[in-house]
C-alpha cells in the first residue's frame, strides 16, 4: 500500500478536501468490506461495519499517528467493529448453527464459485474471533505477518502461532463438513 500517498490524502482531508476523502475511501473500501464480510458472513452487516469504520476513522483523524500505516489503523477499527457486531448479533440470539451462513444472500451468491465461498464462510464462522481475524487479514487483505501484528497489536511471533492454530482449526472445520482441501 502506498503510505506516502495515504499521508498526503490524509493531510488534504484534514484541510477539508472532500475529493481526497473520496480517494481515500475508494482506496480501502473494497478490502475493508471484504474483511468485514468474511468476519461476519453477512452482506448488510458488513456494509454497516464499513460505514461505521470510515466514520470513526475520520471522526478521529486528529488522533491518527502518521508513524503507523493508515490501513493498519482502519483494519483494526474494522476488525473490532466486526467482532462487536458479531457479539451483538449473538446477544440478540439471531445466530444459531442453522443461521450462521444462511443469513441472507451475500454479494457473490449467484456465482458458481459460490459453493466454495459458502463452505469457506461456514468454516470461518466456526472459528473463534481471534482465529477468524488472522485468517481474514492474511487471506482477504493480503497482509504480511508484520502488518497483521500491527493491526491486531500483537507481536509477530504471536501472529505466526495464532495463524498456525487458526489454520489447524479451519482444516478441522472443513473436514467435519466432508471437505478435504
Amino acid at each position: 500500500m502506498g503510505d506516502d500517498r495515504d499521508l498526503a490524502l490524509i493531510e488534504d482531508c484534514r484541510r477539508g478536501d472532500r475529493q481526497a476523502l473520496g480517494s481515500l475511501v475508494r482506496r480501502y473500501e473494497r478490502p475493508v468490506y471484504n474483511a468485514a464480510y468474511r468476519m461476519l458472513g453477512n452482506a448488510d452487516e458488513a456494509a454497516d461495519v464499513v460505514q461505521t469504520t470510515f466514520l470513526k476513522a475520520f471522526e478521529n483523524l486528529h488522533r491518527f499517528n502518521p508513524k503507523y500505516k493508515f490501513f493498519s489503523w482502519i483494519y483494526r477499527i474494522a476488525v473490532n467493529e466486526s467482532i462487536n457486531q458479531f457479539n451483538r448479533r449473538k446477544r440478540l440470539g439471531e445466530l444459531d448453527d442453522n443461521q450462521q451462513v444462511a443469513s441472507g444472500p451475500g454479494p457473490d451468491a449467484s456465482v458458481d464459485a459460490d459453493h466454495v465461498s459458502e463452505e469457506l464462510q461456514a468454516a470461518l464462522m466456526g472459528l473463534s474471533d481471534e482465529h477468524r481475524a488472522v485468517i481474514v487479514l492474511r487471506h482477504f487483505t493480503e497482509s504480511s505477518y508484520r502488518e497483521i501484528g500491527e493491526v491486531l497489536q500483537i507481536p509477530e511471533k504471536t501472529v505466526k502461532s495464532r495463524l498456525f492454530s487458526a489454520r489447524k482449526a479451519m482444516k478441522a472445520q472443513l473436514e467435519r463438513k466432508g471437505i478435504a482441501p
Partner: protein
Amino acid sequence: MMDQQQKEWIQAAVDGELDAEGRERIERLLADSAEARVLHEDLQRLSDFIDRVPPVDVPASLHGQIVDGIELPKPARAGRFFRFESLPGFLRYGLAGAAAVVLTVAVYQGGDSLDPSAGTDDLLGTIASRGDMAGGQEIDAMRFQTGASQGAVSLMARDDHYALVFELALDQPTDLEVVLPDGSFRIDAFARETANPASAVSWSDNRFAASIQGAQRFVLRLSGLPGQSGAEADIELRLLRDGAVVHAGVISTRNDP
C-alpha cells in the same frame, strides 16, 4: 518429530514470508523429513482453497453512503493546544489531582467502562474484547505516588489468562517498563481504553515499554494458565524519568490460589 518452530517455518514458506536463508533451511527440512513434506502440502492446499474464493463486490451505493456520512474535521487553530509542563505549578498539580480523582472513582466503581458493548473508537489496542480484558480476581496489586503522579497496577486472574490492569495519572512524561521473567508466560495482547496522544507503546513477548503522560487506563493480557506450575512469576515494573528510576516494584502471580 518436528517442533513448533519448524512447523511455523513451513507455514512461513507457504506464506512467502521467508528470506533466502530461511528458504534454504526449509528446502533441507523438506528433503529430510516426510512429516515436513506432508505438513507443507496440507498448508499449501488449505491456502490455495481459501485463495480460490473470489473477493466479494462492494455494493454500488456504499461509496456514496460512506462519503456523505463523513464530515471532515475543521483545521486546527493555532494556539489551541498547550503543553502540560508549560502550565503554572498550581494549575498543573490541580489538573493532575483532578485526573487522579477521576481515575480513583473509576477504579472503585469497578472499572465498568471496559464494556465490550462500548464503541471502539477509543480502543487503540488489540482485538481482544474488552469483556475478556476486564474483571477477574485480583491476586496482587501495587500503588504508587511520586510527586503529583500516582497510579495503580492490578494483576487479575481469569479463567485462562492473567490481566495486568494499569490506571495511571502522570503529570510529567514518564517511561514505564514491565518485564516478565523468561520462560514464565508472555504478553499476548494489549488494549488501552483512552487514546492518549501523549503516549507510545512497544512490546515483545516478555517486555512492555510505554512513554506516558496524563491519565491513561490500559490492560496487558498475559498468556499462561493461572495456577499451573511454570506460570508463577514475579513481574518487574519500573517508572523512569529522564532515564532515572522514580519507582520500582514487583507484582507476583504467587498469590494465585
